[in-house]
């Protein structure tokens, strides 16, 4: 890159105090002449030190080194990179995998690699954030359309509390239920060969993705302003699509491993108890979303 100038800390051959006057000492690490400028035109320097041209960078890899190990304690950010070790293609694969309920049973037996065991936390965080935005967008935009149709859009005022409420509800459900499920299964019932906690959270997070299309479908209810009954039916359809598909997706992914674990401790009935509790929790979640974003529970309001 540049002529190997005197390294002012290690190489004390040329320490010369005459140079230090009233000016601050500037380490001579940066040559100002033109020979140091990046050589991108393809010409190779006679200087063997790493240069910025294509050959130099590709053969020696002097470009920024990217950490590829997850060393470090729980307080270092590198430790948590293992939960975010995911590419764009993997991410979309996971999303489609969670929406496509029919083929979940076939896939769950195949993948046993590291990423499958750990799961990833990118999905739970950002898929859930997307769902929050979509539900909020659906709610406010349908109200906006409604007020247009009634006449004059100055009347509509959005409810900011809706956004914060949605954040608490969705993140609370996606993190708390898997957490409690994990604690109860592993510490109370002492199940073995169980999921890692991050994997359950990952399953729950990706299962939320089906709420996105259903929330966008829900915008249509703004057009049904004069048809109370149809509007109520549409709201229930939207909520049930989201709730049922996400519930089935969670159930199908949790079932095989849960079955394996419970049968290994010889308590086959436990699986129905645990799945039943998860189902009730999910039902509560569906009802909460219906109340918060789609009016009350009545079909005709």
């Amino acid at each position: 890159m540049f002529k190997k100038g005197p390294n002012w800390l290690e190489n004390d051959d040329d320490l010369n105090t005459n140079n230090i006057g009233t000016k601050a000492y500037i380490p001579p690490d940066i040559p100002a002449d033109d020979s140091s400028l990046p050589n991108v035109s393809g010409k190779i320097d006679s200087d063997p030190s790493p240069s910025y041209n294509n050959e130099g960078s590709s053969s020696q890899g002097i470009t920024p080194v990217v950490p590829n190990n997850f060393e470090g304690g729980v307080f270092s950010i590198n430790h948590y990179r293992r939960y975010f070790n995911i590419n764009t293609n993997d991410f979309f694969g996971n999303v489609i995998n969670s929406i496509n309920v029919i083929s979940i049973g076939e896939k769950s037996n195949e993948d046993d690699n590291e990423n499958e065991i750990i799961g990833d936390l990118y999905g739970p965080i950002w898929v859930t954030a997307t769902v929050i935005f979509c539900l909020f967008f659906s709610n406010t935009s349908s109200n906006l359309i409604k007020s247009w149709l009634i006449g004059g859009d100055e009347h509509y005022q959005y409810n900011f509390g809706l956004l914060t409420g949605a954040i608490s509800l969705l993140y609370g459900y996606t993190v708390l239920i898997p957490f409690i499920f994990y604690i109860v299964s592993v510490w109370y019932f002492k199940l073995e060969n169980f999921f890692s906690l991050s994997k359950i959270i990952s399953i729950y997070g990706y299962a939320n993705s089906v709420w996105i299309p259903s929330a966008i479908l829900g915008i249509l209810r703004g057009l049904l302003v004069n048809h109370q009954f149809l509007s109520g039916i549409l709201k229930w359809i939207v909520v049930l699509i989201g709730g049922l598909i996400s519930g089935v997706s969670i159930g199908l992914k949790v079932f095989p491993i849960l079955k394996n674990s419970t049968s290994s401790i010889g308590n086959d009935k436990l699986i129905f108890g645990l799945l039943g509790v998860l189902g009730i929790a999910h039902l509560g979640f569906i009802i909460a979303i219906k109340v918060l974003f789609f009016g009350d529970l009545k079909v005709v309001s």
Partner: protein
Amino acid sequence: MSQWKPVNVDPNHADDFDLEPDFIEPDDATTPINKNKSQYSSAQQQQQNQYQLNQGQGQSSNSFFNFSSFTTPNIDLSNSLNPILNNENVKERKFSGGDTLDEPVWDTLKRDLVAIGHRLFSVVWPASLSKLAKVQQHNLLIAARNSGINIGINYDQIEQDLEQDLQNQPIDDSNLKKLDWDLWGPLIFILIFSLILGYLSPKTNTSQVFSSVFALTWLTFAVIAINIQLLGGTISFFSALSTQGYALFPLVISSIISIFIKWSFIRFIIYLLFVSWAIYAATINLKVSGVLPGRIFLAIYPVGLVYATLGWLCVIT
């Protein structure tokens, strides 16, 4: 004065004046000394040059702008200081040379203002960075391949394309100064944006909207910056924060427009336009700052989500 007499002594006979020649025996042979000397003089020359450079154009003399420190960091204390900052071989320090003690205050301020202007320009005209983004992505691709990271990309094919592009048009490295970060952009733009949203909202909950938008924006920007850190690459936390903050600029414009335009449909069109502008600017800037090639979508998606939410708040107030 007149009583002073010069002493006439022959130095060869006087013991008191037995002077040794001013010569220190070298440890090594003579050639290394000459080499050292020439090295030293070139170093002095460089130093002089650098000093003049600093005097002449205080802004662009940051060592960070130079590829030498970019590729081979000399002494990077930030590695030992701050775990949040240590994921960078890109040096991100404010000013590393020259004499700032006795310069006029106006010069100091002007340096910061010019830097802010550069970063703002890279948001207003993101295409100015696209070539640099290409180069950076190329380097990151190679780095990822060398450290064995799977980023889901067929290395060979993309590399060929990039090298061809690079050979056709060499880059202009003066653009590198835009890689520097500061927190002025995020502060100013978030402040203006939440003030306008608070002003637009109904009188009863002005303060609630202002404080919620202000806090939520900072919080989500911080979360996204951590998210980008977690996805790997060479970008630092504050660099990501700065990028997001500056790319908020189009949304600030759209919020100002929505003060004057009350009709939601027009607002919605403006919203689509300005949010896509902001997302494009943020994408280019993040590419330059060093997000791994196969994960750009994952890095930029949350940013787009937050911009969409904030812009939507502009539309519906």
